[in-house]
């Protein structure tokens, strides 16, 4: 019941605690001198490795300079988009490397000759010549590859499943750890933001180094302060029941409109894709018109993704939110619902309709569809940059001067990245080299966005809470995106029947059957009994999963209790640290030496 100040005074009065404080500071000093000597040793070994690090160092410098320039002019919010893009690029690079090494290179040894001719249109449609290349699932052999008669064999089926499986497990773990780290950093104090004024001391962005940007930020801050003072002085409006009811009806209508648009978009995409499949099955595959018709679906999907968000932003403006942050969250939610439902309906179409169709190789068809979607999305991204930023700047500076230069729309761009990455993840199973293509497109997008940003955009006016939005985006990448992709892959592996005539799993009843067959073979080798045992008891037994879930729940509960205990401990220790650091000085060091 004592206030903090009285408590500190009470602690300061007690003589026994003075001795304890001296001991603590003594220990700290000892550790300092220990680490002094450790660090000099460490530095000597660093000098030896310095030469080998110098080339890697130059590469770091390349990205470092660009990011520094962007952060210096536009602040941490816009910088978080580019850092997110760089992070997604590493996922794609990793996937491409392991797919290429473990799946594609062995396939080159057992490659079939490609009899189709190459016309330029294949780059856009993904069909034609590319159909019989390593780009798609259908080209891979189901045999065990052997270079010569007696050399080691390489089982393509197992390689395919395990490479894709291990990649997704690594992605999952890496996302979970990033989410946990980001959450811990940014939500350590779950209290809501109380107090607008005190955030003044915490919001100056030290990253900004450009003179004009600094001046602009100072101007914006003073405008915000003036607005905030005006709001405080104004009376708090008490809405009557009628007004609240009207607001509620407006919000409801807006949600109905946005969900209705999403459903309509999905229905449109579904009927267009059914139509597509029928056209394809009729056999107009190889002429120019037929190939161009295949591009209609991706173009329509990208158009819907490009223009419906404008409608959502307009709805958000109509709704007159009390809190502008709510407007951002609601708009992001609506955009995510739209994008996920479009991907969802496409997955439903691929998994239920295309897989049951009578085409020769349905997996390659799905791979081609995804390839086209990815490519058209990339082209629309570049066009969006051109029109959304370049042309908008020209209009804003010459024709309609009060519009001004455009601002970089962080939320919209990050959601586009998440959409593209989700498509790539789905496509990895059907087209193993798709991450390589996405690698190239992401690198091009990075440079194009950077150039467009520098040339056309102005720094953001409102405060963008970069830390919390980054956590939200990582969470969105994890939950609808990766978990959805894993469900799609799970359905493909366990439920669907692979095509009879192409791909590594041709003729099997399901893709998972390849693993069952392998386990059966392993039963005959006495050295691998443990693998068979793990498979039979762990993956096939329901009891195992029940016990695992119970253990996980208990562990989660224990951690929750430990966190609560630690929170109160942190509070106490913080007061103690303040006390110790403010009273620690050289005199204690001398006392420590005497004590020793």
């Amino acid at each position, binding site marked *: 019941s004592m206030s903090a100040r009285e408590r500190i005074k009470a602690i300061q009065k007690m003589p026994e605690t003075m001795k304890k404080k001296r001991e603590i500071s003594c220990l700290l000093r000892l*550790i300092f001198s220990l680490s*002094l000597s450790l660090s000099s040793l460490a530095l*000597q070994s660093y000098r030896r490795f310095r030469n080998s690090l110098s080339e890697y160092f130059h590469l770091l410098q390349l990205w470092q300079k660009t990011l520094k320039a962007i952060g210096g002019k536009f602040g941490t919010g816009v910088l978080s988009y580019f850092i997110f893009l760089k992070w997604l690029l590493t996922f794609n690079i990793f996937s491409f490397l392991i797919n290429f090494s473990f799946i594609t290179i062995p396939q080159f040894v057992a490659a079939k000759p490609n009899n189709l001719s190459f016309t330029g249109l294949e780059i856009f449609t993904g069909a034609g010549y590319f159909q019989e290349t390593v780009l798609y699932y259908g080209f891979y052999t189901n045999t065990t590859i052997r270079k010569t008669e007696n050399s080691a064999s390489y089982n393509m089926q197992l390689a395919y499943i395990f490479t894709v499986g291990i990649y997704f497990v690594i992605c999952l773990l890496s996302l979970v750890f990033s989410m946990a780290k980001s959450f811990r950093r940014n939500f350590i104090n779950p209290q809501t933001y109380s107090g607008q004024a005190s955030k003044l001391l915490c919001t100056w962005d030290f990253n900004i180094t450009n003179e004009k940007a600094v001046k602009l930020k100072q101007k914006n801050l003073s405008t915000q302060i003036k607005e905030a003072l005006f709001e405080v002085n104004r009376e708090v409006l008490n809405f009557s029941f009628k007004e609240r009811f009207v607001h509620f009806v407006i919000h409801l209508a807006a949600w109905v409109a946005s969900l209705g648009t999403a459903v309509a978009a999905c229905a449109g995409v579904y009927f267009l894709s059914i139509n597509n499949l029928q056209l394809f099955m009729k056999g107009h595959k190889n002429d120019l018109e037929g190939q161009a018709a295949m591009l209609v679906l991706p173009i329509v999907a990208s158009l819907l993704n490009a223009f419906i968000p404008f409608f959502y932003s307009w709805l958000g403006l109509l709704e007159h939110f009390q809190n502008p942050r709510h407007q951002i969250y609601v708009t992001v939610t609506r955009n995510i619902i739209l994008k996920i439902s479009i991907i969802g309906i496409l997955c439903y179409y691929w998994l239920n309709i295309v897989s049951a169709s009578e085409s020769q190789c349905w997996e390659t068809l799905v791979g081609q569809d995804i390839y086209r979607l990815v490519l058209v999305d990339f082209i629309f991204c570049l066009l969006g940059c051109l029109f959304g930023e370049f042309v908008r700047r020209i209009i804003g500076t010459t024709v309609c001067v009060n519009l001004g230069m455009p601002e970089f729309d962080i939320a919209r761009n990050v959601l586009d990245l998440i959409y593209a990455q989700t498509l790539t993840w789905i496509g990895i199973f059907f087209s193993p080299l798709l991450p390589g293509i996405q690698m190239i497109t992401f690198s091009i997008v990075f440079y194009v966005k950077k150039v467009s940003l520098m040339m056309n955009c102005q720094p953001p006016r409102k405060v963008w*809470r970069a830390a919390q939005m980054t956590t939200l985006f990582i969470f969105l990448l994890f939950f609808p995106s990766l978990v959805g992709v894993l469900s799609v892959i799970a359905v493909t592996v366990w439920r669907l029947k692979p095509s009879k005539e192409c791909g590594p799993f041709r003729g099997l009843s399901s893709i998972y059957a390849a693993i069952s067959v392998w386990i059966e073979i392993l039963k005959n080798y006495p050295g691998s009994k443990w693998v068979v045992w793990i498979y039979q008891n762990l993956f096939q037994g329901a009891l195992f999963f029940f016990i695992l879930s119970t253990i996980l729940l208990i562990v989660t509960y224990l951690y929750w209790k430990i966190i609560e205990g630690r929170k109160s401990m942190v509070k106490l220790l913080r007061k103690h640290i303040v006390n110790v650091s403010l009273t620690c000085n050289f005199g204690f060091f001398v006392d420590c030496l005497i004590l020793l």
Partner: protein
Amino acid sequence: CILNYTVFTKHVQDKFMSDCSMTGAFFLLVYRLHGRYHEMAPNVVPMDYTKDPDVKLPMQLIINMPELKENPFKERIVESFSEDGEGSLSFNDFVDMFSVLSEMAPRELKAIYAFKIYDFNTDNFICKADLEKTLNKLTREELTAEEITLVCEKVIEEADMDGDGKLGFADFENMISKAPDFLSTFHIRI
């Protein structure tokens, strides 16, 4: 260049102790910083630090660095890290400054230095005068005196826990803990 560090300050050692996985990145940082420190005054700063030279660069040189030039708090930043309190930085202080301002420094360390930076009269409290100077620097003196007084009073009202009319370090840290963006904004990339 030849780098032989045998003298670290206690604040750098804090980081070394708390998070040993960061040491690789930290050494890279020190290497880069030595290059920058040297190029600011190539005639004065030696390439060889084995003899532990006693070299300090004056504040004028440091605040002209492109990372600091446009920062409204540049003088205070440099003063907070200089041992003699007048703004001249030895290489130790220079490394301290950029390592506290890097992404490697823990929140507590950044809070300690942010407090020092905003404490203009160095009395270990952020009083009303300090807040007024901070606000002027943040808004480029566009607010009227009345508005500044109002805002400063509101800040002290919201953040002052022990009721002495000024912000102690505990109050400041409490305020920082409610601002999750602090870690990413109190950061200079070098």
